[in-house]
């Protein structure tokens, strides 16, 4: 069991912000875009919003914190 859980936890600890950016912020940005009608004629724009989420996450990982928090 530990051979699965320990590497999983280590991976999550290291890449937590990237996954969170992609999945959480990507989904949220995509939902906002949908609410604003941006996806009505151009559903492929969804990729852009998930990419934005991923970029947010990657930036946070390498910066050490999210963009809206001053760097340490």
């Amino acid at each position, binding site marked *: 069991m530990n051979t699965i859980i320990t590497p999983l*936890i280590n991976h999550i600890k290291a890449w*937590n912000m990237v*996954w*969170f950016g992609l999945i*959480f912020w990507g*989904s*949220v940005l995509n*939902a906002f875009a949908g609410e604003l009608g941006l996806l009505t004629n151009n559903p492929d724009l969804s990729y852009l919003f998930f990419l934005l989420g991923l970029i947010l996450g990657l930036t946070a990982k390498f910066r050490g914190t*999210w963009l809206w928090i001053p760097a340490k």
Partner: protein
Amino acid sequence: MDPSQVDIYSFANEKEIARSFSKRFQWEMVLIGLGQATVFLSLWPLVILNIIPLWIAAPISCLCALFAYLPSHEAQHGNYSRGNADKRWIDSLVSHITLIPLMFPHHIMRATHMKHHAYTNDPHKDVDYDTASSNSLLEVFLRSNESTAKYDKYLEVFKDDKNFVKSFEKGGLVGLAYRSTLMTLVIFFPLEALFLWWLPSKVGVMYLSTFFSWYPHYQMETGRYKDTRFWHHLLPRYVNHSMQLHFVHHLHPGIGHFDEPKAIEALKPFLIEKGVPGADQIPDRVSYNPLIKF
């Protein structure tokens, strides 16, 4: 000082008075903890099924988050079971459930909170020192964004404390479950996940950091009677969960939250004698709203 006075204000006497307020079962806290979590969880089907709009549910969810911590805090100190092993499940149950809106794992909160009590205001060992040492409310808000991740560095500080490490490992799994649940929910219900859980949890943590950490410990020293202060606020006492009275909790954590005002009235002479910061300004009678100072 007159020798008879030394005897009156002895620690034994202080402890005896405090103990008389440390017996009652805090049923109000159980009700608040389980109640707010029930409301919080109910909001999800209500919003998803379009029974209530998200813009109404979101502020309710934030309110739930504001009420989420204290019932767990009582549990962290074992104030429901009060040393009775058969009742420890109440501590555990209430704490796990009430912390859901904040996405805090009970084991991590309990372990870190005990360290906070043991090393209050110690720059290296107090797990909440980052908040207490903030220079402004804005700084408190920004620092509180880290949530429980800020505690990770204390694994190294307390690596020799096996119970601490074990609690951290257990809590880590609960934290992982919270994270996975949020990530799953956001795929199917993105705006609900944002406004019903993520944002309220942030609001809750900022509230906690402000009133539970910053105000009571800001610019305080280390030491039993010096690490927490009595402070004033423009808002009524119930708005900040009576955290003006937080110092008595640091002196006697066994006193139930709702019995603290009476305990403070009884202990006031001791607190003044021991030099608790601000103790001379404690009103003789601590009513619901006596602490306003313009």
